[in-house]
């Protein structure tokens, strides 16, 4: 298995920045999904974490990556989502809930879209992409994003992904196109409050009144 082709795929842009942007998007999308799930699940029947991840991760992938030099576009083949960075399309999905989950043993539920994407890519007319980069990640509502990769694979007959290359992402890599708004400090200082507060101008009076401790 080739270890990584990420740098060569994005050789015409800053591959490091793309990598950082992907981490950013995953982290913020997973966090938003966790928040949505925490509040929605107890109150709404059928509210699932997977559905929250689907919506929020896709949104953040598009939102963060479009700020990269050259931009990004969202493609919606067969009702699904792909983020088109010209050099490649990105397709994120959750492969597990914790760090112990084995991405190389992941069995992907097959759909027509996934088969076209991972088997017939470059042959189906409506799916002509120069490269498909999968972005598998592990996440759970408590810990958030715990592991993520970028890689290229095909689906074998057993619905398992046959990885041609795979690279684990450093979740501390925040070299994205925009300043992070999440991270450990989020629960303490929200983004709008990061600007300086007004000062309170207080001075002692010239004379303390008699009998009041002065």
């Amino acid at each position, binding site marked *: 298995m080739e270890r990584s082709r990420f740098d060569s795929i994005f050789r015409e842009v800053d591959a490091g920045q793309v990598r950082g942007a992907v981490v950013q998007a995953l982290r913020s999308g997973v966090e*938003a999904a966790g*928040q*949505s799930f*925490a*509040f*929605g699940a*107890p*109150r*709404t029947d059928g*509210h699932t974490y997977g559905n929250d991840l689907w*919506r*929020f991760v896709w*949104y*953040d992938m598009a*939102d963060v990556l479009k700020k990269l030099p050259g931009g990004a576009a969202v493609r919606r083949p067969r009702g699904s989502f792909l983020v088109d960075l010209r050099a490649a399309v990105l397709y994120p999905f959750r492969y597990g809930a914790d760090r112990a989950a084995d991405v190389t043993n992941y069995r992907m539920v097959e759909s027509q879209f996934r088969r076209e994407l991972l088997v017939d890519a470059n042959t189906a007319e409506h799916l002509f992409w120069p490269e498909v980069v999968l972005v598998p990640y592990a996440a759970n509502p408590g810990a958030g994003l715990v592991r993520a990769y970028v890689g290229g694979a095909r689906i074998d007959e057993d619905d398992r992904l046959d990885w041609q290359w795979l690279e684990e992402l450093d979740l501390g890599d925040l070299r994205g196109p925009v300043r992070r*708004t999440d991270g450990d400090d989020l*629960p*303490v*200082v*929200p*983004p*709008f*409050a*990061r*600007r*300086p*507060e*007004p*000062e*309170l*101008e*207080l*001075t*002692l*009076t010239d004379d*303390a*009144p008699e009998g*009041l*401790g*002065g």
Partner: protein
Amino acid sequence: MVRPVDAATVAAVFDPARLTLARESAAYSKRDLAEAIGRTPSAVTQYEAGLSRPSGPVIDACAAVLSVPIGFFATGRPRLQLDIGDAHFRSLRSARAAERRRALTMVELVWELTGQLTHHVRLPPLDLPDLTSSLTEPAAAARTLRAAWNMAPGPVPHMVRLLESRGLIVAFLDFSDSGRVDAFSTAAGGRPIIVLTTEKGTMLRTRFTAAHELAHLVLHTEVIPGDVAHERQADAFAAEFLMPAAEIASELPTRIDLPALLRLQQRWGTSVSALLYRCRELGTLTEASYKRAMMKISRLGWRTREPGEEFPIERPALLARAFELASTRGVTIPTFAEALQLPPARVRALFGMTDTRPLLRLVKNSSDTRTDHQHQTTF
């Protein structure tokens, strides 16, 4: 100032309004107090009306029941007496009159505390332009005030601190069962006081409420509690003050997009509900889309509490910091307690301080058959 030494002395200089203040502050009806001190309700009415003067033992009993020193009932201290018509209450239906009266007594005490504090510390000068005469459009008034206060474009980082920096007093209701009393404000005492509540409030909602009360203070010199037009104007002012149309319009989603709204919530410090309302106001969402979006966030439970709101409510700091400065002169909480004739714990609460010291719990001897209540006291 009179420094009474015993109840008989206080009885001679009894201030009827002080009894009303202490009774309402302790959430006692006249009937409840009468029963507790062994008198008739009409006797209490006569004390408060100044038609008769309570005896020393009655003063003692009132002080014990209402948890104030006997000196609280003496004349000689400046006093603010507020009526419900002096304050901008959102609705006169949501809370009982007694609850609103109780809330007002807290304002009266904060006013007294502030008066004592200004003997030692100069507070920020009041900078609150009167926008009633020149502008009738609330959004325009909000823009004018932002400009007058030299505020940078963008979100307001700390709404409460901003108000305090302009000389307004902000306080939180210091009694726990305040659920039916909404935030309110008054300028009747000179320096305006805004009272916020924690019961229903989340951090983002409290910011909006603070801006709403600011609107009343700059727009509505005539107080009409619960007036629908005033309330709408205050909401419109608050929306423009926290989310200026010229800056936010291009950022608002043009379809129901909850992730985008959550991002704006974090950026502007306003709730998703307020943002959706803004979308409708500024025309990025149709009326139908707005209604669908509100139904959606209701189903998610976001009308009660939204994701991304897990930040502490903005708390006032002006009075506590002023006390810290005063304390460099040797002024202490007991100094203020004596000046105001209040228990020190109540003074700390009025300063907005949290008393972290352990409570001393006194338990009556079990052989005492008169009561098995536990008595809890703080010092």
